[in-house]
């Protein structure tokens, strides 16, 4: 009887200790999760800002201005356009 009791006591102690560690583990992982989520939010924000930046730099108005003024490009006139028919394509 005593032996059984001692055994059960040992099991109880082990269980109690493992509860403590798993509880600790859970909290540690939770903190990590929180941190990762915060990071994800920060990246999300950054993504938005980068998107904004990209579309601001890529606005057609700006592209056209640079093409015309800095790169001295111009639209081809009809006199300088040639339409090449695709051989074998149905008309």
């Amino acid at each position, binding site marked *: 009887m005593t032996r059984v009791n001692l055994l059960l006591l040992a099991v109880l102690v082990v269980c109690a200790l493992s509860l403590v560690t798993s509880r600790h583990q859970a*909290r540690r992982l939770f903190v990590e999760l929180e941190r990762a989520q915060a990071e994800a939010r920060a990246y999300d924000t950054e993504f938005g800002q980068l998107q*904004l930046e990209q579309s601001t730099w890529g606005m057609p*108005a700006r592209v056209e201005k640079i093409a015309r003024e800095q790169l001295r490009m111009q639209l081809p006139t009809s006199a300088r356009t040639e339409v090449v028919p695709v051989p074998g394509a149905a008309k």
Partner: protein
Amino acid sequence: MRAAALRRAPEPTTLPRLRAPIVFGALALLFAGLVARSVYLMWIDNEFLQTQGSARHSRDLEVPAHRGRIVDRFGEPLALSTPVKSLWAFPDKFDATPEQLAQLARILDTTPQRIAAQVDAHEDFAFVAKQIAPETSERAMALRIKGLHDQNEYRRFYPGGEVTAHIVGFTGDHDAGQEGMELAQQAWLAGTPGSRRVIINRRNEAVEDVAAIRAPQAGHDLALAIDTRLQYLAFRELRAAVETNKAKAGGLVIVDVATGEILALANWPTYNPNRRDKVARERMRNRALTDVFEPGSTLKPFTIAAALDAGKVRPNTVIQTGGGQMTIGTNTIHDAHPEGALTVEQVIQKSSNVGAAKIALGLPPETMWEMFSEVGFGTTPKTGFPGEVAGRLRPAKSWKPIEQATMAYGHGISVNLVQLARAYTMFATEGEVKPVTLLKTDGHVAGRPVIKPETALAVRHMLEMATSPGGTAPKAQVTGYRVAGKTGTAHKLEGHGYSHDKYVSSFVGFAPASQPRLIVAVMIDEPEGGQYYGGIVAAPVFSSVMGAALRALGVPTDAPVNNVILPPQGSEVPEET
């Protein structure tokens, strides 16, 4: 004996008989008091301790959910929210050392005096800096200035600026839509922030989730039908035209024939939604949808279509236009370009008012009304845009003959530009009117058949003639593509009659004529640059926008590149209404 003596019980000390029960009773009483108190605290008056307890170890965290983006058909952002911070203080609690103040000023790119003035300007609450970048706010908060607080906010940015302003609209306070699609799709775009309770440790980090009080609901992204490239094109050409013609305003709509999607919708004047503090409401109006005008001759094809469909005339039926004059009762209607006999085709090509009126008077008013109503005049275009108008189409019973005659060429009826573009889907398809939308749709959209396919093709041919050198709009021609369309030059209504020097010049057309892909409708309000004919003011805008749009979309050409033939200078066909 000794053992017996030892074993003998000690002499009993006599105690007062009541002592034990009294001590026991007192202890029991105290114990009962404790139990009662704890019962009281645990079950009856438990609020105070519970709040105090949870205040020490749990915290309610707000879970942000931001407003959805508005994107164009290819996913290019047209409106998006990014988090920003605002710094604020209670003026009586704000206490910064001169050194801190100088540092803060450096971070915020201002002067210590200005910050001090800002804080002192208000009595109970003052913003120190509004909507600044989160990093800037972090550096400012790192100074640990007493009484300085920060709060999270979202700011909405519109990368398209003035080009897409009228369609997208903008949000006002608290991220709520106030104009345009931001308002129309508020429920879809808006996010509801959630909230949850967590247990925190002594470093203020959340260590365990207790309960989710409210789940956050992120806003949805909204994809518009707009194509940013075409939108810019439309905007650029429209602005140029309004400026050269010294016009009051203008509008331009591009509609995809297959799906009814509005690929571009430009208005002038416009505004920048990112900086709109001092913008007049006037500039914010999406005129293409919220303003009506009398369209003039752009309505003639519908009169002709009604007559053709009813079998009253054929494309080559000859109409006597009586030298460009016709009297109905006490009124006389004129042609700007007097002709003798014209075929029905030529009535459209030369835009003869008398011809259109004569054809209309051969029809019962109900037939004409039905045609106008079927193509969508008098009903809102249902694009989902807030404040779109229906225009005016009076019931056929109330029409007098003179009214029926003027309505044949677009007077006495009012429409908005989008309605006009939608109505033209009937000629661009084989007689079907398509619903138009500002939202992206996938695939082919079925239309509602209104006229016979033969009628649609016949009118399409007449519209193509109108852009040829003998027509009113040779300037609408596009290199490499066959185009079809109709001009309009309408006198504006002023008070009780028509103004004699204020016009609305318009052009509605589609291309390639062999298999139409796009409809472009242009409207220039009150051109004052000396020219006012639709064929001279609006048709060139159509030509440049249509040409560039077809090339941008890679639509195969259906004409040789030397197809554009302009009539000699001064021999253009003028038209009025």
